[in-house]
């Protein structure tokens, strides 16, 4: 009962700030709205009793990635509006395509009858102990192989960041 209102509140915040990311004129405001969106989503995770996911979401997105975005936007001083105007027909086509995708997705979720009617607050899978069990047993291989992905990304970042010429 209480959680229902929180859900609607968080959803409103998430949607509003996601829209404002696109609409706000200054890039730095967009970044902040994006942070707000992430917070609202973290709140949704907590409602689903996935505390670990929520906290990691805050650490990774709001804590690390958004700070990096802020850094970039501030150092590049992007606050001037110098976005090149797009032709009108591209905008119209983009709107039509986006709306079509939205209609399809809304249609899916409207037509979908929930198979398991369960109180999400009662599931324990989001707690760190259970998550660890799943991650290190069932999904051990992808978890380990993700390290190759990160190593690649790290080496790549150094490669692109270094001043040396090839």
């Amino acid at each position: 009962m209480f959680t229902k209102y929180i859900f609607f509140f968080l959803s409103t915040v998430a949607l509003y700030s996601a829209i404002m990311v696109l609409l706000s004129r200054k890039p730095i405001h967009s970044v902040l709205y994006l942070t707000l969106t992430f917070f609202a989503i973290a709140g949704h995770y907590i409602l689903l009793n996935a505390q670990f996911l929520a906290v990691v979401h805050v650490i990774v997105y709001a804590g690390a990635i958004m700070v990096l975005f802020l850094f970039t936007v501030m150092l590049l001083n992007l606050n001037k509006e110098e976005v090149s105007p797009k032709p009108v027909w591209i905008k119209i086509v983009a709107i039509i395509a986006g709306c079509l995708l939205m209609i399809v997705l809304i249609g899916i979720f409207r037509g979908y009858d929930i198979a398991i009617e369960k109180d999400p607050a009662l599931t324990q899978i989001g707690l760190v102990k259970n998550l660890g069990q799943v991650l290190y047993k069932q999904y051990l291989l992808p978890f380990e192989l993700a390290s190759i992905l990160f190593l690649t990304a790290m080496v790549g970042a150094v490669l692109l960041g270094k001043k040396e010429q090839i």
Partner: protein
Amino acid sequence: MSTIISLSVLGVLILAEGLLGKKAWHLPTILIGLLVSLALTLSGWNLNLHYYNEMMIVDNSSVAFSSILIFTTFLIFMFAGHYYRGVQRPLDDIYAILIFALVGSVMMTSFGNLIMLFLGIETLSIALYVLAGSHKEAITSNEATLKYFLMGSFLSGFLLFGIALLYGASGSLNMDEISAYTVREAAHLSPMFKAGLFLLIIGLAFKIAIVPFHFWAPDVYEGTPTLLTAFMATVVKVASIVALFRLFSHCFPAIRETWETTLWILAVLTILVGNLTGLYQPNLKRMLAYSSISHSGYMMLAVLAFSARSADALLLYAAAYSVATVTAFGILILVRGAKGNDLFTSFEGLGRKNPVEAVCLTIALLSLTGIPPLAGFMAKYYLFATALEKGYLWLVILAVLGSAISVGYYFKPIISMYLKEGEGIKLEAGFAYKTHIVFLTVLTILLGLLPAFLINLL
């Protein structure tokens, strides 16, 4: 599994060598390491092993395709010494990233779970985003990496969303369980599953560069350093197609009518648009980009007409396409090195000055066109035959039409080389380089003459 482990160790080893400053050891280590992992891969033949809760399933098709990928990488690395010969800085990072990209592609050929598919695609993609921009001072390289990265990460979102929707509908990420779900629910498939399926197709189509998701490909291919373009055009392309093939032949055969039309249209569009646009390209590199697009269209036929024989046909096709494309890129590297560009005019007079290279390029291009008795012809023949068996008459007719169109651009460099008079400078290819190119050409001819090596394997 041993493939992935050995390749990962190889990548880390290269990085360690770089740390020690042993520049000269890189290429020998890589070549030996690739051969070792090729041997390890082949040792899994007929064992049909399942690893870690079905995360990886190493069946014969995955062994065969992984071997082709590793072998192609080996062939490409044979050019690396020449390509990077003037470079002072250590190249351990570029080589290691290439190896890690290969790990990603091996994951894509042997996944048993959609998580592994996604992880493989991401490992491959992130490695490629970096490699595309590894020529830092060239503005075209910067353009290539940004274009590829922005679009690729956006389309990864589609892929992931598709996987999430499939999970939401079927309740599992495991391929067998998804397949069981489609068999069970084939009559009344939930719309969520369908939407997930199509988002997945979009995501994969982007990675393969299927029309209409191909617009990044020519620009990215053109901007990327040529050696790495060869990797993109062969290993990445084959790995993505194989992933698509594996996914559809394992998971969704029961709901064929849902996706058949879509893939049919995509295949036809890819073949026609790829070949027609290829006619208007000013240089060989962009032409090869469009050639790779149209070839992914042909390979889609195997996905559409999947059967035991179509896997065989795909294997032969992948091998023939990879070998011929690597040969073409090998010559392209030489011409770009000598002339600084690869416009078709740069090839004028090549036939007289460098007969060996000219003949090799000609044979590679003829094989890509599908002229008998070369490998490309046999591959196309088997592929079209399997498609005909399944009753895709119009598709095959359009594909043959596409091949006919492709003659128009594959013959452009050949005409330049032999029929046009030009000053034609000498290409500076060492003995080893020449031998390697000749070896590749012999391979193309052999695959055409004796396709039975590959055609009855799977």
